[in-house]
């Protein structure tokens, strides 16, 4: 307890940078939920695919640990593009191949959820077992080991203190992660609130039938939100590799669960809620890890989720994507 109070600033900064990544992943849940009222359980694996896409890119480009800044920045941008494409592509593929047939049948939510679990299993096994078996010899750095083996991703940026306030050290990684996450989120917020496509998304979220009557192509809106959510997960994957520097085929599960918790915390279906929820969750977790042994932090995340759902079932900022900014 005392360590927490003594270093509260440091813990808060760490929590914010941890939470920023949760927030980006949470956007994927929130977008899909806002429009389809469906928990895209497979979204965690979309994130996982993003981290693998980055690892493949780095391996092909032979990126070393801590390259010069001139190399690091373009590499990071390239990583962002590749991860965005891979994650967005996978999200779209999942939508088209699994959810579309179910929507045509007007299946109950339970069926969607079970399908999504199935998709998650498939993706984890494909990256943990199938690809290592089939193409492991081609890219031994990425697919050389099977299952939950942890793969290290080269760090692009060194962790250097930038700003010191009292005992609180804000370092380069904190700044990169938080700034990048906030930029992505502002971009998404502008896209949803200011563009023609965004208006379509909001219209479908508010009332699908009326939106269809007004000439909004619902099917295209749905594809769009899956891709947008995927791209955000790709960005989160890049920041994850910058901050943590490793990945594995089973990485998605815990992060997905945390991100979903974050989305619910802020109000699922609400974009700004995802940001708030993600950052709150990050801070709570870091505090919890400081107070108790850090192995209890996952338990804390769930208990907070249950408490929030009990007292405010629609999350802190309320639920609706359509009404977030009418």
């Amino acid at each position: 307890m005392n360590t927490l109070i003594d270093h509260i600033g440091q813990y808060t900064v760490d929590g914010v940078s941890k939470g920023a990544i949760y927030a980006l992943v949470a956007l994927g849940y929130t977008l899909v939920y806002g429009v389809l009222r469906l928990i895209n359980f497979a979204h965690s694996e979309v994130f996982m695919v993003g981290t693998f896409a980055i690892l493949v890119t780095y391996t092909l480009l032979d990126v070393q640990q801590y390259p010069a800044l001139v190399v690091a920045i373009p590499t990071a941008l390239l990583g962002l593009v590749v991860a965005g494409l891979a994650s967005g592509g996978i999200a779209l593929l999942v939508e088209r191949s699994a959810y579309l047939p179910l929507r045509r049948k007007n299946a109950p939510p339970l069926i969607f959820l079970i399908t999504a679990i199935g998709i998650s299993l498939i993706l984890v096994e494909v990256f943990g077992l199938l690809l290592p078996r089939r193409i492991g010899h081609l890219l031994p750095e990425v697919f050389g080991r099977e299952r939950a083996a942890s793969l290290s991703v080269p760090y692009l940026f060194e962790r250097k203190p930038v700003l010191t306030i009292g005992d609180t050290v804000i370092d380069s990684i904190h700044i990169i992660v938080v700034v990048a996450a906030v930029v992505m989120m502002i971009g998404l917020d502008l896209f949803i609130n200011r563009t023609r496509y965004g208006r379509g998304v909001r219209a479908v979220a508010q009332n699908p039938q009326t939106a269809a009557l007004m000439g909004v192509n619902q099917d295209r809106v749905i594809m769009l939100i899956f891709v947008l959510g995927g791209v955000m997960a790709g960005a989160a994957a890049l920041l994850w590799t910058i901050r943590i520097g490793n990945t594995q085929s089973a990485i998605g599960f815990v992060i997905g669960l945390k991100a979903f918790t974050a989305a619910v915390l802020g109000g699922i279906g609400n974009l700004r809620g995802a940001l708030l929820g993600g950052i709150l969750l990050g801070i709570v977790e870091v505090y919890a890890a400081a107070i108790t042994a850090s192995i209890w932090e996952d338990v804390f995340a769930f208990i907070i989720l249950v408490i929030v759902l009990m007292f405010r079932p629609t999350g802190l900022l309320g639920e609706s994507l359509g009404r977030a900014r009418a």
Partner: protein
Amino acid sequence: MTTPETSTPVESAPRHAAAEAPAEGNVLRRLNQQRRNAQAAIRQRWEALPKWQRVIAVLAFIVFLYYLPWLGYLPGGAPPRNPVANLQIPPFHLIRTDLGSGGSPWAAVLFTCALYVMVAIGLNVVIGLAGLLDLGYIGFFAVGAYSVAIFGSVDSPVVQALQERFGLSQDWAIGWALCIPIAIVLTSVSGVILGWPTLRLRGDYLAIVTLGFGEIIRIAARNLNGQSGPNVTNGPRGISAIPGPEGPPSPDNQIFGLTDAKPWYWLALTLVILMVLGVRRLEHSRVGRSWLAIREDEDAAAVMGVHGFKFKLWAFAIGAVLGGTSGFLFASRYAYIDPNQFDLQLSILFVAMVVIGGSGNMVGVSIGAILLVYLPERFRDLDEWRMLYFGLAMVLIMILRPQGLIPSRRRARELADRAEEVRGGRHRAEEATINA
């Protein structure tokens, strides 16, 4: 964004017309029709039989189930190592798992099947009957397993603390039979503790929260090791010397030993039969009918005076006790447990059993459980890839046959009804007979 097009409820008629086009779809349709007719004919035959004949058939089947461990050779003979030399009943030996090199003992596989059938029947109460997606069922399984381990084993820190506190001898522990009521109380309490705050939530939130619950139980079992919390479970070291019906594991045990799985299988089978009878009664009781009403339409059920929350809580508590019983048996059989045996993959496997088999139908979920345990054992190569196959099977079944392999007829009707809502009732008559 501008073209008004497809997938709005009103306009999906063309797609359906396409399905009727004379293509291979027609062949499938005809085959499906034939299958349906055959099923209906068999059911009619069965229902036309006099009651005593049906009872005899069921009893004969149960006797066959008890006989299963000897399948492929006659009772009393030595287990066949060389399949060609010893087998007396040819077609059946192909079913056994222990004939090739490195196969698991057949009776042990049977025990595992029976154990998971118990789990499937318990989870079916929650998912199939009440329609609550519980992804953390492993939590109840673990609570059941740990209740016999913590209170019944001399290796457990709690028992050791009690020995010290009350000056009891080193091999004192609570008896196996006394652990049963303890386990029932603990699991039903854990069901209520999980259900009370969460069952008011919408279905999809419930799934995530239960998933979290399963993980919390595992983390707690791992962390309550004396260092990061009080010592209750020995943490990752696990608890050994868990008793069975004959007391703590020892070479003197005549029936329920560690090597011979046959008595354990018979015990599990007996419990399965009791559970099936119990759940059948429950299904047709007031509680069971309320569950169906809640599953089909909670608001409508509430209007008719069905107290949704109360009955959901019942479903959770009953499901928890059934899952806990299986966990209890699991711990007794293997005499050792540790937290890693209760990971979420197993929990997902439980859901897969129910869903693939056909949620809501006890025969269906039992067959789902048997398939998911038996296939990887019989075809060892499958084992490594099984999560991949489960994933594929879950997705394909949800898309092509959301009601499961052997569905409950009622459930199939519900799903067909929902699909029909989209089609605007054009093929009402035809749809109504689907899978009937």
